[in-house]
């Protein structure tokens, strides 16, 4: 849960990047770390195995001046995606304020995406939270690969709910829409605590850059 320190005029928010194994969560944080103004970020801490698979979590602290009179500190975490590390995911989700769910767009990863989203819901339920009530956006990552599912299919599979989540076509390796997704979840989070809880009309929704589709001949249907 976020907290305001009125003496130092600081607010802290925790944003967690969640998703199946090898979907690009750490790549998101690496890109943000490389591209954000160094004055506005701390060190990227990665607790990974020798093969660079996330073992515990990655952590990147960011500062921003977005609320008049306060320094806002965003703490970005990733969870380990591998199925066996569910206890670790529960720990990292503790006191979460916002979520970026990173889905792998490849056809063969769709089942893992669905399982991971369900796992997220189950783990949030342990904290008496539901995904619809927490600021959350979806990333459809790896849109540059040839065997990706169409966006409307991914929307049907992962975003089929009464109040749909904002979703982004992302290529985390080149950084396309990585900041758009981060800015979206940050704005939803900030407006959650505004005196009018709904995002007001005219509020600055981040602009997502459309991703060029792969050539038709490169697309493959699932077996």
């Amino acid at each position, binding site marked *: *849960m*976020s*907290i*305001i*320190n*009125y*003496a*130092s005029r600081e*607010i*802290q928010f*925790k944003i967690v990047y969640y998703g199946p194994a090898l979907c690009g969560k750490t790549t998101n944080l690496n890109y*943000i770390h490389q*591209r*954000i*103004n160094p004055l506005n970020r*701390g*060190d990227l*801490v990665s*607790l990974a195995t020798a093969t660079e698979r996330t073992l*515990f*979590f990655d*952590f990147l*602290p*960011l500062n*921003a*001046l*977005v*609320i*008049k009179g306060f320094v*806002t*500190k*965003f*703490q970005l*975490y990733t969870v380990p995606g591998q199925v066996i590390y569910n*206890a*670790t995911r529960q*720990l*990292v989700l*503790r*006191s*979460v304020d916002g979520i970026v769910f990173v889905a792998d767009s490849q056809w063969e990863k769709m089942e893992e995406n669905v399982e991971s989203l369900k796992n997220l819901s189950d783990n949030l339920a342990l904290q008496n939270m539901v995904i619809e009530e927490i600021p959350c956006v979806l990333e459809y990552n790896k849109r540059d690969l040839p065997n990706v599912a169409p966006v409307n299919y991914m929307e049907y599979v992962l975003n089929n709910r009464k109040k749909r989540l904002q979703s982004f076509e992302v290529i985390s390796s080149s*950084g396309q829409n*990585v*900041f758009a997704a*981060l*800015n979206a979840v*940050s*704005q939803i989070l*900030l*407006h*959650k*605590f*505004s*005196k*009018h*809880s709904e995002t*007001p009309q005219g*509020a*600055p929704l*981040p602009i997502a850059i459309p991703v060029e589709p792969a050539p038709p001949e490169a697309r493959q249907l699932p077996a």
Partner: protein
Amino acid sequence: MNAIPVLTIEDVATLDGVLGDFLKKTEADLTVVIDRGGNVISQCGDMDVIDVTVIAALAAGSFAATRELARRIGEVEFNALYHQGNGSHMFMNSVDDETIMITVFGSRSTVGLVRFYSTTTAQNVAEVLKLLRRTAHGLSFDPKDISAEPVFVDHP
């Protein structure tokens, strides 16, 4: 309407008093109170020594991870953890179900001294936080105070 819990200037001053007294008695370098999600609640001492934000995130993870070890020997959790270095050491102890206290100390202090005073300090901090949760100050923002610019900018 959602509101963020607030530590008022008075709350911070009270916590600073408790932690400052602890540092004086133990001659530790710094002490940080964090919630179990890794957020910093209060800090006192020489902040040039470490990046407090990173330490808070790692310490919360470390403390939580050892719960499983504790369960294997029939405990709910370990109340305290000690990491011994060559020159600098770290002591972490549970304040309450939601909060942990971290102390970094060097050769001027000893683990026994830190452990001894941390018990009373943790109780005092817990009392302050209990009162704070009961009074439950909350703040929500005027939408006009939230910047219309993107929060984070991609610098090519």
